[in-house]
């Protein structure tokens, strides 16, 4: 039993470890380790295409995660105040946002936005008084919108679970002590749900930062880091990709560990341990 579990961990981590190991390889070989070197990291960070893609990914992940955390938390708070019918519709749409495959989300967003832009852009151009009318197109906005859809539903789910575990009694106790609803929210509810909001934010950031397939459809001419990595892989395996992959791994590792610590803290607090 123990041996089997060890095998599972080796299976999960050995491939990743191999990528990390060969990112420090001095030579170009993918099968022979010829010495330690950090030259591929230097090469990767000196690559302007890569750095641009990284910046794009950070901007998109941060913006969509902030929007998802704020709107998702608001939704989690508001959902319980809805009537049963509205609530069922809302829950259903949130579940759909999670269950519908990313490839379909990407396609649907692409199709709808291209149709809308196709109608709007000529109309604006005909009304625009100046020389160069603004053109709407795919880019940051469309990726943020499509990522935010899934991550907002994710944050809602996490925060809703946290609110459900809070219980109504502390809210009622606060009201009995003549606190206004806003004071109750600000002093009682918010501190309790904040760790799960933060965890949701980090998971949303990680998802957006790592997502390839949704962005692939709606990125337009923008390149995100996963799109760049995917394109490089198709050109062939190089140590530079190993270096980029290692950096991506380390970044998401830090984010996910932080999210787990926040979620665990909330659990031990709520059980009073």
């Amino acid at each position, binding site marked *: 039993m123990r041996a089997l579990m060890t095998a599972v961990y080796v*299976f999960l981590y050995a491939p990743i470890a191999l990528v990390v190991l060969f990112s420090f390889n001095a030579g170009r070989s993918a099968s022979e380790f010829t010495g330690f070197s950090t030259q591929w990291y230097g090469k990767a960070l000196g690559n302007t295409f890569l750095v641009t893609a990284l910046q794009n990914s950070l901007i998109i992940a941060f913006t969509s995660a902030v929007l998802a955390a704020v709107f998702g938390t608001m939704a989690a708070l508001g959902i319980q105040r809805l009537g049963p019918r509205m609530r069922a519709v809302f829950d259903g749409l949130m579940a759909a946002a999670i269950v519908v495959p990313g490839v379909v989300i990407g396609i649907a967003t692409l199709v709808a936005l291209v149709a809308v832009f196709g109608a709007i852009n000529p109309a604006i151009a005909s009304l625009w008084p100046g020389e160069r009318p603004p053109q709407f197109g795919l880019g940051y906005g469309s990726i943020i919108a499509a990522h935010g859809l899934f991550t907002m539903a994710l944050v809602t789910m996490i925060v809703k679970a946290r609110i459900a575990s809070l219980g109504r009694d502390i809210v009622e106790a606060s009201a009995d002590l003549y606190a206004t609803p806003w004071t109750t929210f600000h002093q009682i509810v918010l501190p309790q749900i904040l760790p799960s909001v933060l965890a949701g934010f980090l998971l949303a950031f990680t998802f957006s930062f790592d997502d390839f397939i949704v962005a692939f459809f709606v990125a337009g001419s923008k390149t995100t880091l996963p799109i760049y990595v995917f394109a490089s892989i198709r050109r062939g395996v190089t140590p530079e990709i190993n270096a980029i992959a290692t950096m991506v791994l380390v970044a*998401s590792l830090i984010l996910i560990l932080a999210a787990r610590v926040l979620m665990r803290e909330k659990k031990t607090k709520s059980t009073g341990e």
Partner: protein
Amino acid sequence: MPMAPKTKRNLVTAALVGPSALWLFVFLVLPFVAMVIFSFGERAPEGGYLPAFTFAQYANLPARAAAFWNTLMLAPVGALLCLLVAYPAAYYLAVKADPRYRLMLVSLVVVPFWTSLLVRTYAWMYILGSRGIPNLLSMIGIEDVRMLNTPGAVLLGIVYGYLPLMIMPIYVSLEKLDRRLLEASADLGAKPVSTFFSVTLPLSLPGVMTGVALVTILLLGEYLIPQLLGGGKVFFIGNALVDLFLQSRNWPFGSAIAVTLVLVVVLVLMVAMRIAWRVSGSRQVDLV
């Protein structure tokens, strides 16, 4: 004049739910409607969409039968292979592992799921590629072994990519299991094996169902694993969709396939929930 309490309450609710409702409507409902409309259209000569009302795109679905066949075969097989590895692992974590280290051991399983699937799949491209295992095999005299771009490679990638997602729900259902039931079973003279099959396994079935349903549904829309490890030879619906939208630009046909894919997902979900109700005897199913 102060607002009536009820009006104020409704306003607050609307303000809380408004942004996400708008987001869901504009970026989920409307795009889906647009996709359905496109699926009844015709392909414009230069690619893209020409308004029409025709069922031609749906009638043409058999042209991509191979993609549907591969997906509908390999996704459930991949999920079941995943289950075979995941169950013993979940059992170990929930029942056998030292409680002091349990949380850390569970974290070690979850963390890979949240790291880039692209990078993790790339790692296997590396291992299975000509400079990986086949290269090592040729050193000991076994020549010309092809591993990459085979169904086996895709299945391996699937098990690797989705193992954490399969382990978690099974682990949760096993952890909730009342230990006293196991002791009672042993006290009544049952051997460990028969306790497992008559007590542990049936009680963990909801977790098993959740895991299989989750992984199967995600696999139905998979693109990266067949693309990188199947190399265009083993392709899924997701690969057909990328081809139709980004290369051959046949949007109406692609939309018809995407709509069909959603219907398949819904069907799988309904079957899974129906079975889950039966095994757990309740209507509570946590799919996520």
